[in-house]
Each structure stands twice: as C-alpha cells, then as structure tokens.
C-alpha cells in the first residue's frame, strides 16, 4: 500500500489533468456538432435539438472520463517517476498527441483502409516514435513540463465550461428518456 501511496496524484492535479484530457475530445465533438447544426436546425424542434446535442456531449464526457481513468490507473501502477510525478504534463501531452493522430486518421480513413503492411507498419512506427519522443522531451526538460502545465491550466478553464454543457446534456438526455 505504501508503494501506491507514494504514487498518489493530488486531487488538484487529477482535476487539472481531466480538464486537459477532455479538451481535445470536446473540441472535436463541438466542431462536428457545429458543422451539422444548421441541418438539424431546419428539422428539429428546440427540445429535439437539445437532445440531439446532448447525446454527443455526453459521449464526449464519457470518452474523456475513460481516458482520464486509464491515465490515473497507469499513474497508480507504474513507478512514480514514469508518470505520477509529472502527471498533469505527461497525461495532457500524451492525450493531445493521441487526439491529433486520431483526428488525422479520421481525415485519411479512406486511404488507411487501403494500406497494406508496407504502409501500415511504418505509419505505426512513426506514431509510436512520436509518443516516445514527446514523453522523453517532457521527462528531460522541466521548462517544457512547466509550459505544458500552464497550457493545461488555461485549457482546463475552457473545459469546465464544456462540463457545464455536458451536465445540461445529461439532464436533457435523462428527461427525454423518462
């Protein structure tokens, strides 16, 4: 138990990390909602519109929570130096990087499905290398960690606004399904 205690991440850091992790997930969701919103506006009533927006926001919250839990569990089970000591910076930057790669994959999905091993293996190696590089840089340079932490703090404020909409989304979804 002592080992786990030493790897414990403060609740303030957990909260900050959640804000940073949830940010790209929500931005992606909101951009796509906004793209389709004019079409929805034509055909849905105000109450239906609230429901249609509520579900994807709720999904974004759940997706953020899952990633956050995964990072928190990793921080708990891995040696402190690996993740827990720089939890906010490392979890934030790794999830941001993951989000960037996933967003790119969405854009080029039609090409990806045509790839054979000769394209897929180098691509996966490049992705893996990018994670190792970013992880190494944050571990190596304290100033970088500090910048990321500051960025995480700034983005977390925005995310807490998104959380408010998530909460409203939850209420709407629950009422609509009563």
């Amino acid at each position, binding site marked *: 138990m002592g080992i786990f205690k030493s790897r414990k991440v403060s609740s303030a850091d957990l909260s900050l990390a959640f804000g940073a992790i949830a940010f*790209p*997930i929500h931005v*992606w*969701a909101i951009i*796509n*909602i906004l*793209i*389709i919103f004019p*079409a*929805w*506006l*034509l*055909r*849905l*009533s*105000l*109450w*239906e519109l*609230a*429901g*249609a927006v*509520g*579900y*994807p926001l709720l*999904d*974004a919250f759940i*997706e953020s929570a899952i*990633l956050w839990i995964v990072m928190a569990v990793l921080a708990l089970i891995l040696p402190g130096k690996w993740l827990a000591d720089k939890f906010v910076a490392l979890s934030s930057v790794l999830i941001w990087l*993951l*989000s960037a790669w*996933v*967003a790119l*994959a*969405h*854009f080029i*999905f039609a090409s990806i*499905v045509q790839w054979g091993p000769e394209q897929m293996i180098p691509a996966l190696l490049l992705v893996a290398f990018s994670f190792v590089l970013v992880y190494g840089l944050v571990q190596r340079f304290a100033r970088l960690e500090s910048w990321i932490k500051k960025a995480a703090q700034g983005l977390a404020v925005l995310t807490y606004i998104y959380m408010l909409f998530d909460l409203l989304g939850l209420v*709407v*979804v629950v*009422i*609509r*399904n*009563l």
Partner: protein
Amino acid sequence: MKSSLTRRDFLKLFSLLPLLSLPLPDLQQQQSPLKLQTPAGQNILIFVFDALSARHMSVYGYPRSTTPNLERFAQGAAVYHSHHSGGNFTTSGTASLLTGVYPWTHRAIHLNGTTLESFNNKNIFSAYPQGGFTCAFTHNLLAEILLQQFRANISLFKRTRELAIDDPEYSDRLFASDYDVSLVSEQLILRGGETKPSSLLGGLLYRFLRLSQKSHMADIYGPQFPRGIPNLDDVYFVLEDAINWLINELPAVQKPYLSYFHILPPHEPYYPRKDFIGRFQDNFIPAAKPPSLFSDGRSDEALNKNRMEYDEYLAYADEEFGRLYDSMLQKGILDNSIVIVTADHGEMFERGIAGHVTPTLYEPVTHIPLLISVPGQTQRRDIYSHTSCVDLLPTLASLSGQPLPSWGEGLVLPGFSADPVQKDRSVFTVEAKSSPKQGPLNKATVALVKGDYKLIYYRGYPKNPMPELYNLSNDPEELQDLAGAQPSVAAALQQEIEDKLRQTHSF
C-alpha cells in the same frame, strides 16, 4: 418591490423551458377517430418496395423483363398507370402514404424526420380498429423512425434488426423512448456522414470494428452476393430472410390484420443475388435526355450501367415477391386479403442524375407503381387516371364503409369509388429537405400533374430555375419543355401550386 429575478426564480423558469416544445392541443383529434375495417373482415397487406420506379417495371411496359412475378400478380389486380408519390425519398413518401396527406401538411420532409405530432393518431395504423391486429416491418431506418412514431397503434412491430444479418444500431436498445432523436445523434457520434464522427476515439474504433465485421460478413455472404451484401445506413440484410419471415408468420397472425411490409430493394446500393447479375446485358438504350440544371455530371454510359444494375436488383426483389405471392396463393391468404403493392418513391438514371437524392421531380422519381388485388378478383384492370399515394388511406376507409378521414388530402381511388373519375384531378409531389419543419417551404420543388400536363416548380434555389412544363400524354419521357410555348398553362398550374402552398402555410 423586487425589480430583478433571483437565482431561484431563474432556475424555476429554466426548468420550464422544455415545455416550449410541447405540442399544442390538436382540435382535430377531438373528432371521432376513423376506424378501418373491411366488411367481411378481410386482411389488408400493404407491400412497399423502396425506390421502385414504375418506369422500370415490365408490368407497366418497360422493355426489360424486370417484374414477371408482379405481372402474374397484376392478372388479378387493379393496375394504376399514373400513380405518384408524395415525396422523392423515403421519409416524405412513406409519411404521405401512411397519413394520407402531402409533405407540406405532415412535415416529415427531412432525413430521419418524423411527422408533426398531430399525426401520431392520424395514420393507417390508428385508423384500424382497436383490438384489430396491425403489424409492420421495414428494412429502411428512415421508415422505421415513422413506424416508431406510430408504434402505439402497431400490435406487432418487427424491428429492422430482427430481420437483418447485422445491425450495429444501439439507439433503439438504449434510448427507445427517444428513438428518432437518439438515432440522429448516434449517426453523428459513430458514423458522421455529413461530418466526421463526433466521437474522436470511439468513432475511429467503430470504423475499424465495422471494417472487420464487414469482412466477416463478406466471407459468409460474398459468394451469394458478389457485388456486395444488400445494406443501407450500415444495416446489412438478405431479402430472403424477410420474405421467409412473412411466409412463415403471416398465416399465423391474428386475423383480420393490417400489415405494412416495406422492403429495401431495389433501393441503392444495387446488390442483387449472384444469379441476377448480368441478366440485362442487352442493347437497350433509353431515350437520350438533356442534362438537368441539377445534374451531377454523370455520363450517359455511367447512368446506363447504373440503370442495368438497378434493373437486376429489381428483378431479384420481384423474384422474392413471387415466392411470397406463390405462398399466399397456396395458403389461401389471397382469398380473404386485400393486397396492395406500391413504392415510397422512384429512382432516376437520366439528365446526369442517378438515384433519387435530387431536387428534381421527373417522372422516374415520382411515378410509382400501385397494384391492388381484392379477394375474388380474377382479371387485370388497368386504370389510367392520375392518383396519389395519399389516396390509399381514404380508399381503405371507403372499403370499410367509413367516411373519408377529415384530415386527408386524397380521394378514393378510381375502381373503389362510385363517384365519376375527376379528369381535372391535381396530384402533387413535394421535395423540401432544405426547408424548415415548421413554417414556409422556402426552398422546395413541387410537381403538379393535372390533365395532360405536368409542371415542375422550383422555389428558393440559388440558380433560380424556371418552371418546367411537359405534356405527359404526348411526351411521357418529359423531353420537350413547353413552359415557353404555353405560358398560360404553366402560369395556371404555377398559380395552383402557390395557392396550395399558401393554404398549407408553406408559402
């Protein structure tokens, strides 16, 4: 005296916001409801082919033998030669068929749309007597949303997934009480469509998972369906399963019943069974037509290839219908059943456009089949008057000795009415996907067929297309636009459309 709202007051008001969307009481619902029941307790079986254009059916004279089994069925049926859909895609066309009103009234005019709530109890199912048995099935999720809306009056609602080989949809399982809206959201979250999936990670995982599942399905069904497994909106099926279900279950259904069965073929993608591929590799070349202002730029060669594939898929659907027809004959179901065969809308392969997702309303998209067989009918009867899908509900009411529905915009079909045929009858088709559900149809296309003429009227499009006028008697292929040569006819028909739009608060 306090001049501003307290936090508590604000929250109280905020909690009332959802009430804004509640429908106003519908005074028409206070009227005594229509109840369909045929005099001899006959069953009513409505069989809808999705995207079936009458212009492609050999039963209507198409040169390819696409519908030999429907030709057999027609030998004991009334065959309507100028029957028109209410809309040009599933939602609007099906809603008109089920409610007996045009899209400008029911307002199911968008993909995944529903009708106004006032039609929840003004449709074919609600008109059937309480205690009478109603059942419904469709492959098409757009039609399923409408059936879900009318579900309170459907005794046996066979879900799409129950007769599909694969259906990843979760909305009806998790959010059944909010099906139509949750399905809209599900499509955004996992499938995207007009956008990328809104679920960043889940959406990508879903896309890879579906690839793997499709590959597995292809291993199983690929040899039978080399062009691809029939599907729509990520729901995969084989038509045989649905027909087998009907063959096995129909005799056991509580009688009398009203059954609505809406199959997807020949809707795109055109993936027939192996034995239908290559059936129409002939030299048939349809009439060349000028490109539409809304052309997608498809070449005639590409369109003819699409047409051939559609015809093959239609022949496959017809053969499956034939299997059902033989089973009904053998089991004596036709002796006590009114069988109606029709479609929700048509399909076109001309003027640079393939399919039906188009603002245009040319005949291949709006001219749909209607064949009605009543017990004891042994001869084909051809009827050439203009009719509409909104006529089905009043016709069923008439057959059951009921007054016409107070809300309906249709007439009893010729052949089932003692009244003389109205030769100057106006029949409309409406396309308004880009207009709001409530309020004026500010961007729409309306086709009006009346007498010898058809006017296609465009409203609110950026290219500002002029109305098109055709004489369908002399020019059934709509080759010569007469709007310039006969401006008074065009103006009169345009005026009638605009008056109709005003009457329905759509102008």
